[in-house]
């Protein structure tokens, strides 16, 4: 550049120089250029880990991991104090389910049975396709009576797809097993309305998007 530049142009040039950042290779100093110190450092790190660090492997089948309390595993259907299924067949979970894996068929509660005297409806069938479920926990949040919950069972396996569709009895047996083992205490707010049921639909709200599931 010639010396006849105006001071303004010089300032502009300076600013330009500052704002443009070139992605150059980092400067290589003398020690880096020798390579060997860096290699020795790498080997030292590797050896330090090999000999002096604690191995963090968990021997899985023998040594079960402890799941955090909010882990979302296999579902269960809770029972109330009288041993009845807590579910009142309100379809909230089925509606909330983004994976469309819950299917409930409601039936009127048997009126002649005094056990069911304070119930209006109960689920005649309650099936969850465990393979389709994405374990998001929205059914649990939607349930107004804390009937459906996700347990900390993480190693669900099966030999066929049919086997992985859990019906009401299976889901209740999951509750019996987990509550017997004391692994999963009932963790939602014990009968209080869940967050999903708190906001009621207003007349000013737009209607729900159509076509979300069979009952959406």
């Amino acid at each position, binding site marked *: 550049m010639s010396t006849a530049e105006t001071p303004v142009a010089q300032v502009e040039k300076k600013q330009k120089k500052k704002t443009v950042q*070139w992605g*150059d*290779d980092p*400067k*290589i*100093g*003398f*020690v*880096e*250029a*020798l*390579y*060997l110190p860096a*290699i020795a450092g*790498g*080997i030292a*790190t*590797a*050896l330090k*880990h*090999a*000999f002096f*660090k*604690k*191995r*963090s*492997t968990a021997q899985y089948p023998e040594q079960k991991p402890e799941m955090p309390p909010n882990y979302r595993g296999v579902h269960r259907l809770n029972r109330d104090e009288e041993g009845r299924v807590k579910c009142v067949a309100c379809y909230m979970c089925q509606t909330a389910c983004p994976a469309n894996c819950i299917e409930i068929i409601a039936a009127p509660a048997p009126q002649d049975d005094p056990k069911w005297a304070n119930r209006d409806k109960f689920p005649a069938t309650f099936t969850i396709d465990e393979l389709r479920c994405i374990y998001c926990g929205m059914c649990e949040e939607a349930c107004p009576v804390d009937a459906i919950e996700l347990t900390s069972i993480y190693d669900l396996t099966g030999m066929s797809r049919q086997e992985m569709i859990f019906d009401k009895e299976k889901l209740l047996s999951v509750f019996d097993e987990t509550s017997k083992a004391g692994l999963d205490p009932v963790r939602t707010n014990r009968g209080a309305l869940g967050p999903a049921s708190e906001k009621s639909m207003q007349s000013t709200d737009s209607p729900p998007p159509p076509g979300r599931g069979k009952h959406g």
Partner: protein
Amino acid sequence: MNWYEIWAELWPTLIAIGIILAVVPVVGLYATFVERKLAAAVQDRLGPNRVGPFGLFQAIADGIKIFLKEQIIPSHVHTFIYMLAPCISLMTAMFALAVLPYGPTPVNYFGGLRFIVMPGLDISLLIMFAISSLSAYGIILGGWASNNKYSLYGAIRSCAQFISYEIPMGLSVIGVILVAGSMNIETIVASQGSGDGISGWNLWWQPLALIIFFTSALAETNRLPFDLPECEQELVGGFHTEYGGIKFVLFFLAEYTHVVTVSFLTTLLFFGGWHFPGVPSEVTASYGILALQMLVLLVKVCGVVCFIMLLRWALPRFRFDQLMGLAWKGLIPLAMLNLVFLAVFESLGWHRWPLAVLSVLLFVAAGYWSAWQSQSFVRKASVT
């Protein structure tokens, strides 16, 4: 020459070939096991420990699994070359072992049982290099026959890498040849023997050649700091992307055979082969001493193999231009200068000990030069 004489010549060779053919696959399988264990240790894991005590049978389980795998030949490959490439790769890798003594071998071959397939060959080192550079052939054929851009790109990288690193490797070995005055590996090992068993090693007056040789050899084995031909992040699997099952294992075995070959060469050329303090230098017919010398050699080789495996977890991968730069701008000039110094010392008949100091000085000077070049480059770039 009657049949009896031919048989007397033949049976030691057949036994030596049989040992190599039998041992190399097992060594390959167990090298994967050792590598997995070592990798696990470096990464704070336990590694395979389910099959057998300490997971020792894991290698066998892997082998069985791989033999039982379905043979898949993709429809778009050149079938004949596709099948041929892994065979060539393994064949050249194993052929290179023919000239390497895997136990104490005398310079003058006296017949009978021995630990080398081709004894008393005056150009065994030359044959070694001729064959080991052929192994690029298998990789290139595999990459080409796969009819896949990733494979071909891996093969081309491999080709360029082989050509580049052959040169510093050869130049650094010439120093060893000059010191020993022979290209016969047995003579080179014998020339490293001395009274105390350690002061005669080529390592002491050729440390720079050792570094250059080891670096280039590592590049020839396609292992981690230089595994550009098969780097997963860039090329899926590189030249063996289209290979599976037993054909992949042949490539894999070839790679591990290369590692073993390189370790053997490093040990034989620089670490004194079977010479060690407390072990008799001369190769005699006494079985106890032979066993001891063989043990020393194999322990040294195992050490080098473990070091190569450890390097994998100590170094990041080179970029391709860095790889080429290291060979052409770093190793080749250094090896040449080192060779010139050695030639001057040898022809004037001076003592070899100053060569070690000279090697270190040369290395430091190269580092300083490189740093200065880098800085001046940055300076120039910032001015313009």
